[in-house]
């Protein structure tokens, strides 16, 4: 019985360990050099010694229970190709920051919150001296905290209020110890406030900081000098492999049952690709999915309980930190939407006015989502803006996360015969 786990974050690590404990032969494929994913960055994690860990290895496609992997330095043409056949696959590919566009968001010096976090936690590098962290959600706090640790001056702008949490009294206590860690940020957080524009010629030098109404329309704004801005509006799941395998989605995440099984036989999913709820929930889901994938006789009870608790927190998180449509008012016709193909809001509207009414046509007419990132950064916002202008959702909103190749590959690599992994 062989279980292949894709992703070495909290979910994938827990899945690999649980599957190994249940007696399966386990291969853990992760594109990073060190295990731990986004959460444990900078503190290398270790898997159960029975797990075979393939570092610097990217699963670029999945065909049923067969995974195509390349191992070696990122984007090098000299990586080794490998084909892995599995009896069960656990997808734990995590998420990336969601950022809603605003004028100037393409200037150097504007980063995702996660980028600032990865650079600070992973490399001890600060993205600037005077930094504004802007967006919504509790993730802004660890980011600001890491920036302080590496010597930056930080202001945190939370676009929502905190009253949303009052409606979910059961969700909060479990996170209080974590919140206490951020007490030193108390005087630095401003609510119902956001960066709505970034200014500068070749890099950001100032931002417009605006007070927002609950629907995120702008009340008034002031210019503030900065040398970096870090923006995060929640997370977008990395669904490439799951969608490629035909896994059903629900509300934009992989649909799983109580033990992490997806709609595709033999394929399990865990962590942030199934919903955004933090590292503890991801690890609990991984443990349950790994055990199920390895056909362990009994599901781990404590982890199942942690999942129930974690999902309560996840639901409260989503309700307390919405991303409402007043944000569309921040945009100007020349604001970039698709950063890769340099497609502006005006270009998108022109494509819609020419009759593009579904995602596929919209991509082909406007070119939004056709560049190297394949719509990972802009797809969600392009679909939302199009829906707002059309007055109805795109019939094929998933057009923006259908990517048969989970990562770009060079033609020479594609032509090479991969090693069969026995």
């Amino acid at each position: 019985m062989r279980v292949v786990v894709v992703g070495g974050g909290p979910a994938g690590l827990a899945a690999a360990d649980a599957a190994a404990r249940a007696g399966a032969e386990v291969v853990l494929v992760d594109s990073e050099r060190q295990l731990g994913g986004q959460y444990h960055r900078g503190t290398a994690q270790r898997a159960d010694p029975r797990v075979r860990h393939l570092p610097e290895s990217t699963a670029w496609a999945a065909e049923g229970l067969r995974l195509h992997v390349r191992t070696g330095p990122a984007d090098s043409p000299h990586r080794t190709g490998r084909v892995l056949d599995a009896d069960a696959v656990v997808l734990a590919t995590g998420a990336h920051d969601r950022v809603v566009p605003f004028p100037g968001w393409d200037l150097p010096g504007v980063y995702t919150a996660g980028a600032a976090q990865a650079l600070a936690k992973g490399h001890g590098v600060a993205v600037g001296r005077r930094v504004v962290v802007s967006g919504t959600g509790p993730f802004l706090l660890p980011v600001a905290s890491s920036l302080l640790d590496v010597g930056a001056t930080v202001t945190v702008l939370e676009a929502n209020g905190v009253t949303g949490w009052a409606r979910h009294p059961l969700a909060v206590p479990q996170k209080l110890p974590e919140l206490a860690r951020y007490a030193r940020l108390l005087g630095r957080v401003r609510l119902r406030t956001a960066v709505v524009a970034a200014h500068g010629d070749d890099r950001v030098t100032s931002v417009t900081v605006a007070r927002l109404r609950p629907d995120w329309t702008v009340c008034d704004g002031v210019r503030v000098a900065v040398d970096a801005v870090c923006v995060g509006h929640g997370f977008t799941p990395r669904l490439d492999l799951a969608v490629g395998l035909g896994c059903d989605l629900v509300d934009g995440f992989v649909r799983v049952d109580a033990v992490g099984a997806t709609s595709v036989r033999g394929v399990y999913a865990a962590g942030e690709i199934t919903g955004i709820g933090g590292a503890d929930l991801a690890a609990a889901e991984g443990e349950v999915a790994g055990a199920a994938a390895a056909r362990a006789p009994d599901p781990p009870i404590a982890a199942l309980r942690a999942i129930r608790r974690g999902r309560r927190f996840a639901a409260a998180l989503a309700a307390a930190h919405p991303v409402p449509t007043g944000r569309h008012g921040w945009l100007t016709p020349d604001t970039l939407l698709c950063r890769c193909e340099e497609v502006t809001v005006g270009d998108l509207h022109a494509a819609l006015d020419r009759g593009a009414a579904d995602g596929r046509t919209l991509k082909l007419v406007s070119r939004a989502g056709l560049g190297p990132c394949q719509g990972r950064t802009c797809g969600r916002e392009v679909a939302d803006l199009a829906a707002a202008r059309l007055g109805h959702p795109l019939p094929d909103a998933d057009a923006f996360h259908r990517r048969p190749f989970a990562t770009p590959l060079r033609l020479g690599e594609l032509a090479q015969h991969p090693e069969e992994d026995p």
Partner: protein
Amino acid sequence: MDGEPFDVPEGRTIAAALIAAGRVSWRTTRAGGRPRGVFCGIGVCFDCLVVVNGVPDVRACQRVPADGDVVRSQRGAELPG
């Protein structure tokens, strides 16, 4: 990088080394010739591309350099060589 020697601590990515040295951009876009550096930091957005040993389209935020690697800024869409 662009002809300048860099001492990079073991395990640090090209992007982290450049930002630590005070650079914020090292690529220009294909259409507008606009400067870009790191955006997502985790290999998702492809903003941070550099040319490594003549090979373009290498994500600086993912690539850990080897001793002697020759790295340069990428201008628009480039072909290998």
